[in-house]
């Protein structure tokens, strides 16, 4: 088209801006993300965020587990969604361990989810040891119930009788070294029915939450930690009150870390300092910012880059159209 007035040799700027080479685009994205990650790693950049209501609710519940209270962690993510669920898992474990809650891990999505969860528990425990805190011990402080091939049926049984649902599950009592029923462990000893559980947290990259809510949603506080893709449809469950808390992908993970750092004061203000017992206290001085914050700058730069690229393309189109008009 516009070659007539500029000659075939070099493309006019408009054309150029519109037809950026694919590989070039990919390289820029790669570069920008890698750099932001390294920068964040060298000098701990903290991008501010503003926790949403559903994240705040989740934090309130998890932060206020009564001493000895039990939380069920239903993990359903593999390494392929570690980018979002991984950070959520770490934040969840930190909150639970620091507020002295007992928890039991189970999965009905893939057996491998259990091994991955164990990995995260190990990491956080190493961190506690390094920080001079007592590590969480299996059997006393937490349990791994393992993988359930038929989740819906298991949850249905939990709804009727939790002891029946997990009766075959055993764990090793370190004091005697023998395998015992999980209900003999300090974690589940006092759990007679699912109502005795403080909260049921599900981490997943797929739509497993409705299955859970449909069966035990009325008996126990269900909190869902999901990827951004699943978020829009799960938001309705939070609005209708079926979900008590919701964590939306990476940004939700950062919000959790933010809440762990700032806390919610007695007036319900995030990071406020109103006198009196805070609604959900912060963990002052502890390592609160981790994976979430480590990725957050990169997320910002990537999204900005995307917006920029779109803008450039449109400017190019505009220039071309104008040169055509002339």
């Amino acid at each position, binding site marked *: 088209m516009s070659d007539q007035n500029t000659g075939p040799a070099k493309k006019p700027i408009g054309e150029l801006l519109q037809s*950026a080479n*694919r590989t070039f*685009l*990919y390289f820029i*994205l*790669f570069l920008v993300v890698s750099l932001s990650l390294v920068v964040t790693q060298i000098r701990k950049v903290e*991008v*501010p*965020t*503003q926790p*949403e209501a559903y994240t705040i609710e989740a934090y309130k519940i998890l932060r206020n587990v009564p001493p000895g209270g039990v939380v069920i962690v239903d993990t359903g993510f*593999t*390494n*392929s*969604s*570690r*980018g979002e669920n991984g950070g959520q898992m770490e934040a969840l474990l930190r909150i639970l361990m620091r507020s002295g809650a007992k928890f039991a891990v189970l999965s009905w999505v893939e*057996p*491998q989810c*259990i*091994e991955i969860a*164990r990995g995260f528990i190990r990491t956080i425990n190493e961190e506690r040891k390094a920080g001079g805190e007592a590590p969480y011990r299996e059997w006393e402080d937490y349990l*791994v119930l*393992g*993988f359930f091939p038929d989740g819906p049926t298991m949850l249905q049984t939990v709804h009727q009788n939790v002891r029946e649902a997990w009766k*075959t599950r055993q764990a*090793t009592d370190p004091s005697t070294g023998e395998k015992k029923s999980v209900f003999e462990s300090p974690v589940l000893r006092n759990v007679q029915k699912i109502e005795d559980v403080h909260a049921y947290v599900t981490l997943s990259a797929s739509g497993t939450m409705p299955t859970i809510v449909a069966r035990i949603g009325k008996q126990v506080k269900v909190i869902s930690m999901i990827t*951004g893709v699943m978020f*829009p449809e799960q*938001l*309705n469950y939070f609005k209708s009150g079926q979900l008590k808390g919701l964590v939306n992908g990476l*940004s939700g993970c*950062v*919000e959790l870390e933010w809440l762990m750092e700032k806390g919610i004061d007695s007036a319900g203000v995030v990071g406020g300092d109103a006198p009196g017992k805070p609604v959900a206290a912060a963990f002052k001085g502890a390592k609160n910012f981790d994976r979430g914050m480590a990725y*957050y700058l990169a*997320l*910002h730069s*990537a*999204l*900005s*880059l*995307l*917006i920029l*690229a*779109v803008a*450039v*393309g*449109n400017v190019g*189109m505009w220039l071309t159209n104008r040169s055509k008009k002339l």
Partner: protein
Amino acid sequence: MIPLAQATEPLSFWQAEPGSTKMWVLIVWAVVVGFVAVAALLRTPTRVRPMIVSAVTFLAGLYFVLHWLWPTAQDYNPDEVPRNAVEGFSFWLQGTLPSVTAFAQSLGAMLLGIGIYSLLSIHLGRLFKRQKDWFFSLVFALSMASMILFGYWDWITRLTPEGAKAATDAPSLFPHFAKDLLFSGLFINMDAVMFSIIAFFIFSAAYRAFRIRSTESTILLGTALIVMLGLMGGVVVSQDTLLNSLAKPGESVIVDSLRLPTIRTWIQDNLQSPSIRAMEFGLAIGGLAMALRLWLSIEKGVSH
């Protein structure tokens, strides 16, 4: 269900003592009879064949249709005697459901072999005929073989008495390491890599497509932009501080409704969910119609 107790019940015609010779005989007998039936089917005249297929399809569908239409007995309990015939049939339906689903799953699973055959016929053919890319077919064959070998080896070495896979305290054996390297080290990682590669493609696709060319693309672009900005905490916070300088939250309705998260949620609640939902309805009905045509075998080219 609770074991042991069943031992007290007499075995029905369809059951046998596990591991007993009787059981094996019956199993072999069933297989033989089955194959004889297949052999007989080979002789059926061409005219009858579509009818057989349609009949099978219809009956299979009918099972779930009955599940749907037949009055379901309240608080079903296999240990209780149904009150009347209607309830009795409903009991039968509910009782057989697990077996029927298990049957469908096993049958479907056994068909995987057909797919694997297609794969091997392509790659082994290439390999033995030394065609172009035969080396990569070799890579394929080797990685497949090793995954099967170590997958099963590791699985067998780590079987618990219940026959379940002991995902927990696994002994550190050679097959365990080999399997872990192949599965967690390579396979799972490759899964994650391909999943993450989408980011690049989103980038290039957006750059190419999001042009203010037509009303449609402009709307698409605009909404996407608002939602993306709403996800960037940095942007949200700075916009908030700006708006707060105009009016504190809750003071002015107009200012509050300008906040990015508010706009984002409004769009998602009042425009996204109804539009997507309407689309879902259309798809749902399309699926219903297709299922109906398949069930009644009035869809050309499938059953005949």
